[in-house]
């Protein structure tokens, strides 16, 4: 079997003491980067690039990949403990994970996240090993029309199944869309909503928005009342999930993995949808949707599995085509080029040891991460006992360093402050930040692909229905809308909102 000899080659490459060491270093660094709020993977890898020049190409890629998926594990930690997601994917984890922490189940939430990530990582690595080439072919069938329909489906489901008041969720999505419009229009070069400020030319900074709206706002809210600083719950509870929790997480974990693997393959931002989509699906399928937003196990397990699976499969376009799916992958391309390997469709056939070594190391790295993270949970949870007058300034400092490190631009720090205030106002108005983030991320993609599809289709809107994949996605969107508008479902949903 080709696959077995390939995997054997991969494991023999990845399991040399040196490569195991770099895999561990990468996983550790990644976890750390993920845990420290605001400090992004991109910035870390950019800073480590010079070090990788001295390493073997395989070792350096194994380490960089480790940082990337390690951060997916670590990123959920702060999201759960202090409601501070560092990446768009962990924003969803924050919704129910943070609630679990407030209910004294921080350890359980962290364990669920780690186990879900490991399961997803294992499955997705296998998928990369077996199906990378055919999946690439499918991914290439996704043109602008398909992306548009996919994003539309994502947005519609998000609004339809939002928790809390629908008008408010809708308002948040729209606000997110509007914020996403800021910046230079890529088709005409026209600056939009930038008030003549050059720093707005490339749009608002995502990290600044996420850190401000989630983290800073949460700190502000906690500071306003002396007695109820619930950002830090002194009561920690059991560290490991109960049998009941494990039973509850099994199905969401599997669904999240499949969803994340599928969306992660798409090079044009499909991975962004993964955790949002998984959350939506879980809430829809759940027998107890009212628990969502209040600490549902499925609301952590699904999205966490999805984002880790997506992180693994987003290597597929890079490995098979040499096309980076996101800024982190772009950095890896840079690292490869400096090592003298130009990424492209030939890497798998010309550098089999490198190709399969990196894939094998992903599984080894995931194993290391779960072994590493389960005992660390006790340590992370102890963070919650740090008094707020120590914790808050530290969080603020790390957020600022992290945001600054992305573009070395002081302006981004002002943005954090501004979005922190915005987030605080939103909390006061009882509006949720997650739909805002989804709108902010999807809005520009939606517009970009809509207009590109129209350009490619010479202005004929039929392109969206004559292309089979796009038509299917649009049909699904309609189904979602109908389901939501059906009276029985609506009654059920209103029941859910009563509690808000």
């Amino acid at each position, binding site marked *: 079997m080709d696959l077995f000899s390939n995997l054997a080659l991969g494991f023999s490459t990845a399991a040399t003491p040196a490569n195991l060491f770099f895999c561990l270093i990468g996983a550790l660094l990644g976890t750390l*980067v993920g845990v420290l709020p605001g*400090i992004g993977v*991109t*910035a*870390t*890898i*950019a*800073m480590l*690039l*010079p070090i990788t*020049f001295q390493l073997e190409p395989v070792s350096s890629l194994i380490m960089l990949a480790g940082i990337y998926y390690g951060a997916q594990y670590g990123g959920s930690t702060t999201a759960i403990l202090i409601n501070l997601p560092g990446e768009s994917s962990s924003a969803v984890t924050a919704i129910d994970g943070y609630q679990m922490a407030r209910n004294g189940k921080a350890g359980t939430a962290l364990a669920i996240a780690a186990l879900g990530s490991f399961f997803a990582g294992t499955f997705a690595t296998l998928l990369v090993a077996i199906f990378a080439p055919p999946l690439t072919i499918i991914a*290439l*069938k*996704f*043109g*602008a029309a398909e992306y548009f329909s996919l994003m539309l489906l994502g947005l519609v489901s998000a609004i339809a199944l939002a928790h809390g008041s629908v008008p408010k969720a809708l308002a948040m999505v729209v606000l997110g869309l509007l914020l996403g419009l800021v910046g*230079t229009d*890529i*088709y*005409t*070069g026209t*600056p939009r909503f930038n008030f003549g400020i*050059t*720093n707005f*030319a*490339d749009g608002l900074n995502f990290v600044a928005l996420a850190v401000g709206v989630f983290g800073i706002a949460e700190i502000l809210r906690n500071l306003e009342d002396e007695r109820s600083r619930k950002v830090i719950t002194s009561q920690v509870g059991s560290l490991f999930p109960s049998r009941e929790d494990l039973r509850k997480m099994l199905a969401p974990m599997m669904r999240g993995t499949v969803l994340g693997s599928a969306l992660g393959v798409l*090079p*044009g931002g499909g991975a962004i949808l993964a955790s949002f989509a998984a959350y939506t699906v879980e809430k829809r399928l759940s027998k107890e949707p009212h628990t969502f937003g209040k600490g549902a196990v499925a609301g952590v397990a699904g999205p966490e599995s999805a984002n880790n699976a997506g992180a693994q499969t987003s290597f597929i*376009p890079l490995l098979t*085509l*040499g*096309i*980076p*799916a996101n*800024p982190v992958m*772009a*950095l*890896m*391309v*840079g*690292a490869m*080029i*400096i090592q*003298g390997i*130009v*990424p*492209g*469709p*030939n890497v798998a056939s010309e550098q089999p040891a490198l190709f399969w070594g990196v894939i094998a190391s992903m599984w080894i790295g995931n194993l290391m991460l779960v072994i590493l993270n389960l005992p660390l949970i006790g340590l992370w949870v102890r963070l919650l006992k740090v008094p707020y007058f120590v914790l808050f300034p530290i969080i603020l400092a790390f957020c600022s*360093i992290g945001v*600054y*490190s992305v*573009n*070395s*631009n002081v302006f981004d720090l002002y943005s954090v402050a501004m979005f922190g205030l915005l987030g605080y106002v939103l909390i006061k108005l009882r509006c949720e930040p997650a739909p805002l983030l989804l709108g902010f991320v999807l809005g520009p993609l939606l517009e*970009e692909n809509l207009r*590109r599809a129209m*350009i*490619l289709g*010479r202005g004929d809107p039929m392109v969206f229905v004559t292309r089979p994949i796009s038509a299917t996605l649009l049909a699904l969107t309609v189904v979602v809308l109908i389901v939501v508008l059906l009276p029985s479902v609506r009654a059920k949903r209103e029941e859910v909102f009563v509690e808000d």
Partner: protein
Amino acid sequence: MAQFTRFAGLSMLGLMLGSAALAQGYPERQITMVVPFSAGGPTDTVARLVAEKMSESLGQQIIVENVGGAGGTLGAGRVASAEADGYTVLLHHIGMATSATLYRSLAYDTLNAFDYVGLVTEVPMTLVARKDFEPADMAAFVSYVKENADSITLANAGIGAASHLCGMLFMQALDAPIVTVPYKGTGPAMTDLLGGQVDIMCDQTTNTSEQVRGGTIKAYAVTTPERLEIFPDLPTVAEAGLPGMEVAIWHGIYAPKGTPPEAIEKLSAALQAALADEGVAAKMADLGTAPSPAEDATPQALQAKLESEIDRWKPVIEAAGVYAD
């Protein structure tokens, strides 16, 4: 982390200052090389390749700092207003010349805000198409594009990108308006070309050479005056009767206006030494480019290049009527 590096840098600086009385002249501490694009991109790669070697001959570390945004003008603006002490330099590409026209309100005066260190490399470009694009060779390609201009689509990586500039030249040379499809960066544009969603593109060999070699896209011509070693079978655009389409993505190193001449001299010498290094040449060759010859890695050559390129692109951009602000 950035803070940490800077902190490490500062403590190193402290150590250096102690021995400053002994070490005569520049450079006495680490130098920051600003790349006005994100890390991992082709310009960043070029910068890191030469920065590593230049560090060796200068005896001080050159730290690459990515200050991306607004088509490279944010990073260039940062260096324009930095202290002119030789410890901040800028590595920018052809965009330095084109942004003088593409941006109607720049925060700096392109021709008067910088001193020049030298040219680094000139990356050739290739005319490529999706792999099942009909024409068999360059001659057929030119006539096919002219005849079917209405139904062909031309991808580029966004306004001001190398592929956008080359695309404008191509349409001007053919005198045929082609529907242009902008993307956010080369990655997504190349993906759509691989998937056959768009028809043609003109991009740097850095991005196209491996795809062409792998047979996932088709190449028709190179934009250099001579044929390229990596594509011996591809004609030049001049051979195909489009001499006006010759273009290369040249990269240069600049310093803020008023940088001490000794510092400029040392930087130029270090650049020339780096470009003469075999390892650097080999890695550039993998990317389908070559180090600039020593006589081009000089302040005079870069200044002349910048001036002539501003003059060359001004009418092209104005004719296209596309601005980035």
